[in-house]
C-alpha cells in the first residue's frame, strides 16, 4: 500500500518536473499581440477581410501581410484599435454596406418562363440566363441570403433586399451573386439607383416597369455633369459613391422610378 502511494506520487513528481521544464524550454512563444488583436476584432468570422476568420486575420496582421483596415465589420473603430496594438497609423475605412441594385419585383419586371429547376441563383442563371425578362436583374432565388452571415438579406416578391442595420459589409453576397448586381456602398450614402440594366430605354421598358432608361435627368437635376454625382454605363445611371448626391428631390423626379432615398434599403417602393 505504502509502496504504491510512494510510486504514484513519485511518477507524478517526475512528470510535473518534466512538464515544468518543457513549458520553460520547449514553449512556442506566440506573439501576444495576436491575442490582443483577436479581442478587438468583432469575432464574426465572416471572412470579409479575405482571411479564414478573425484569428487568421490577426495572424496575418502580425505577420505584416494584411492591411489594418480590411475588417469591414469592425469599421474605423476596429482599424484604430488594430493600429494602436501594432503601433502604426490607422488606415481609414468607411463603413460599407451591401446594396442590391435591382427593384424589379415580380409585378414590375416580367418573367418570361417558368423555371422549376434547382432553387439557386447561379443554377437558374445557367438556364437560359434565368427566367426574368431582364437579363441583368435579380433572380430572387436567394443565393445571397443563404451566404449572409448576419441574415441581413431577405427575399420577397422575387427580389433580394439588404437591411443596412444588420449588414456588416463582408461582401460575401457580392461574390455569390451570378448577376453581379450587389455592390458595397458607403453606409452614409442615402440616394441609390436600383437598376443594373445598361440597355437602351425602350428595350428596358419591354421587360421591366421600373428599369433605368439612361435619360440623364438625375444628373441634370443634381447640378449637371460637372457636379459629378452620376456616371453612366451604356444607358444605366450609376451613383458616384465617392461624391454621392444628397438632394432627395432628384428621386421624385426620376421618370423611371428606379431611384430610392432610403435609410435602410429595405422598404423599396
Amino acid at each position: 500500500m505504502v509502496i504504491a502511494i510512494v510510486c504514484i506520487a513519485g511518477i507524478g513528481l517526475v512528470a510535473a518536473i518534466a512538464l515544468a521544464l518543457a513549458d520553460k524550454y520547449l514553449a512556442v512563444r506566440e506573439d501576444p499581440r495576436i491575442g490582443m488583436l483577436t479581442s478587438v476584432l468583432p469575432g464574426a468570422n465572416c471572412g470579409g477581410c479575405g482571411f479564414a476568420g478573425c484569428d487568421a486575420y490577426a495572424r496575418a496582421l502580425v505577420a505584416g501581410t494584411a492591411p489594418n483596415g480590411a475588417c469591414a465589420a469592425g469599421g474605423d473603430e476596429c482599424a484604430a484599435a488594430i493600429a494602436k496594438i501594432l503601433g502604426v497609423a490607422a488606415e481609414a475605412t468607411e463603413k460599407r454596406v451591401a446594396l442590391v441594385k435591382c427593384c424589379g419585383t415580380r409585378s414590375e419586371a416580367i418573367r418570361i418562363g417558368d423555371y422549376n429547376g434547382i432553387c439557386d441563383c447561379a443554377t437558374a442563371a445557367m438556364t437560359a440566363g434565368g427566367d426574368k425578362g431582364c437579363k441583368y436583374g435579380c433572380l430572387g432565388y436567394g443565393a445571397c441570403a443563404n451566404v449572409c452571415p448576419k441574415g441581413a438579406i431577405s427575399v420577397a416578391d422575387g427580389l433580394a433586399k439588404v437591411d443596412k442595420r444588420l449588414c456588416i459589409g463582408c461582401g460575401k453576397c457580392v461574390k455569390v451573386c451570378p448577376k453581379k448586381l450587389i455592390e458595397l456602398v458607403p453606409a452614409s450614402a442615402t440616394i441609390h439607383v436600383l437598376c443594373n440594366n445598361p440597355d437602351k430605354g425602350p428595350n428596358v421598358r419591354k421587360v421591366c416597369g421600373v428599369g433605368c432608361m439612361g435619360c440623364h435627368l438625375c444628373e441634370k437635376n443634381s447640378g449637371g455633369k460637372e457636379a459629378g454625382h452620376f456616371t453612366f454605363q451604356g444607358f444605366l445611371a450609376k451613383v458616384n459613391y465617392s461624391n454621392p448626391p444628397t438632394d432627395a428631390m432628384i428621386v421624385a423626379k426620376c421618370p423611371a422610378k428606379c431611384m430610392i432615398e432610403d435609410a435602410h434599403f429595405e422598404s423599396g417602393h
Partner: protein
Amino acid sequence: MKTVKSQFKFKGGVHPDYNKELARNQPIEKLATPAELVISMSQHLGAPAKCLVKVGDFVKRGQLIGEKNGFISVCVRASADGKVKAIEKRLGPAGGMADAVILDTTAKEEALAEGTETPTPSAPKGPILPPLDWKTATKEELLKRVEEAGICGMGGAGFPTNVKLSPPPGKRCEYLILNGAECEPYLTADYRVMLERAPRIRLGVEIMRKILGMPAVRIAIEANKPEAIKAMEEAFADIEGNVEIVVLPVLYPQGSEKHQIYATVKRIVPEPPALPIDVGCVVENVGTVAAISDAVELGEPLLERVTTVSGDAVATPKNILAPCGTKYSDLVAFCGGEKIPPAKIISGGTMMGFAVSTLDIGTTKTTSGLLLLSPSRVFQYSSQACINCGRCLRACPMNLNPAEISKAMEADDVKTAEDAHVMTCIECGACSFGCPAYRTITQFCRRAKASIRARMAAERAAAQAAAEKEKQKAEGAKAN
C-alpha cells in the same frame, strides 16, 4: 471497306422517344440571308474570339471579324455581307451573355448608292480562301486551313478542330472515328448531311487521314438509320486502307464521344483531363468533316450549318442550311411559324439541349437543332425527395452514382459530389430522364461541375499570383 456491327455495348443508357420522323425526310433547305444576323464571338469551346470590327464598318461575307484568342479558341468570320449595326452582349443559347456583332445585311446596297461611306470595291465573286489541292498540300497547310476557316466541332461542344487534329507530341492517332450516331431525339441534321453530302464527307475523311498520319477510320452510325449507312457505304465503296462502317445499337447516349470510342474500338477514355487522343482516338462529327472538305477544296470557311427545326408546335419541321447568326425567330418563320404556342423551346436536342425563353438568339456553329414543343409534350414536374430506387445508377453511362451526387448538392456539399467523380459526368441527362421522383439530377451535376471549375480557376489564379510574388521577392533580393 466493310460494314460491321458493333460488338461492344456500354453500360447504362436509356431509350427516349426519338421523334425523328417529323423532320427526317425533309431535304436540306437553304435559307436566304436574313435581314439581321447576331454573330456571337463565343460560338465554340474556349476563349471567345477578339472582335476586330467596329460599329458602322462594312464587312464582306467570309471576312475575319473575330480573331482567335488563345490556344483553345476559334476565329469568327462574317456569314454575310453587311453593316455592323451594333456590338453588344447578347444572350447565348446556354444562358451566358457573350459579345456579339449585329449585322444589318440590307444596309449595304443603300449606303453604296449614297456613296457616303467608302465602298469596298465589289470584288468578283470567287472563293473566300484560295482553294487547296489536298493531295499536294502539306499537313501544316491543311491544319492551318482548318484553323483559318474557323472550324470547331459541330456536334455540340464546339472544340477547336485544328487542336483536335494536332495530337500532342508522343501521342498518335490510331483511329479516326466519324460520329454519325445523332442519338439526340428529334434531330436529323447530321442524318440529312450524311444522305445529301456523302461525297463531301468522304473527301473530308481523306483530308483528315492525311493530317493525322493515316489512322484507321471507323464510321459510327446507329442501326436506326439504314439510309445513312447505305449512303456512306456507297461513298466509301472504293476507298483504300482500313475503313469500316460500324453499326451501333440504338441507345442513348451513343453519340457521346467516349461511348462511341467504346462501341467502335472498345477503348476507355480515363477520367478528365484525359482526352480521346490519350487512347489514340479522334472523334469528329460528320458535319465537321464535310466542313473541312469545303474549307480545303472550295476555300469556303465555316459560315453556315444545317439546323433541324422540329417539334409538334412548329408548322412544318425542316432541316435548314442557314448562316451562323440567324436568329431563331427567322428559322421558325421559315418553317411557317408556330402551329400552336409552344410550352417549351429547346436549343439543341431534348436530352442535352438548353431550354431558352426567347427566340431573339442567334445560331452558332454548334446549333444542331431548335425544338418547339406543345403543352402536351411538356410535363410540368416538381422535384421530390429521392426514393433510392437506383434507376439513375442503372441509367448512367459513366458509372456514376447520380443519386448520391444530387443529394450531396442539395446540401451544397460539393466535396462529396467531387469525391463521387462528378467531373466525369457528361451531362447526358439519362439520370434525370428516368427518375420517378423527377429530380433535376443533371442540373445538380452541372452545378457541381461549375462550382468545381470555378474553384480550380481561383486556385490557379492564386498559385499564379503567389509565384509572381515569389519572383518579385527574389528579384528584389537580387537587386539588394
